[in-house]
């Protein structure tokens, strides 16, 4: 078995390719849907359907993540799942904290932040978790 046949190395490579394709598709779909909503469809059920189109490539990002985790070796999977659990905890804590601040007049944030916080926290937690096993 060499680096090209190592299933874990292959999983990482495949993940990067799939993630890249999904993000490229996401940018294209966002651009397209914004343009259509501005120029072609301005009301009706189709308006909402087109506004939701960018979710489709995001689903492919999540599928790529799951495929990566399932194809990785046991240690990589443990590290990534611990980091993912940490990111869920951080997101929940931030949500509760901000919820209390909203109670005393802070503005309503966009629901967008949840996705962003989960992903960023996962990215930050991953090397920290891996470090504990060195």
């Amino acid at each position, binding site marked *: 078995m060499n680096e090209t046949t190592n299933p874990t190395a292959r999983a990482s490579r495949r993940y990067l390719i799939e993630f890249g394709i999904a993000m490229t598709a996401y940018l294209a779909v966002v651009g397209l849907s914004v343009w259509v909503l501005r120029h072609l469809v301005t009301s009706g059920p189709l308006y909402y359907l087109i506004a939701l189109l960018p979710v489709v490539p995001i689903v492919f990002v999540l599928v790529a993540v799951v495929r990566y985790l399932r194809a990785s070796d046991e240690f990589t999977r443990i590290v990534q799942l611990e980091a993912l659990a940490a990111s869920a905890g951080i997101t929940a804590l931030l949500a509760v904290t901000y919820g209390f601040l909203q109670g005393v007049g802070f503005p309503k944030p966009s629901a967008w932040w949840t996705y962003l916080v989960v992903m960023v926290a996962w990215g930050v937690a991953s090397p920290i978790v*891996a470090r504990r*096993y*060195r």
Partner: protein
Amino acid sequence: VKNRLKVLRAEYDWSQRELADRLGVARQTIVALESGKYAPSLPLAFKIGKIFGKTVEEIFDADSVD
């Protein structure tokens, strides 16, 4: 779990990358195993034993397990 992985790898003159590729795992998995901070699953432990032609007990120190 304390183990002789690093010593065995040196005897075979394999890099961490080379052993990782032979086991089908990431290099950081070898780092974690060699540090003794990560205990492998039974299938991975048997695979490691097979690669070095040794039993699991000859590689991993059973007395170091809590």
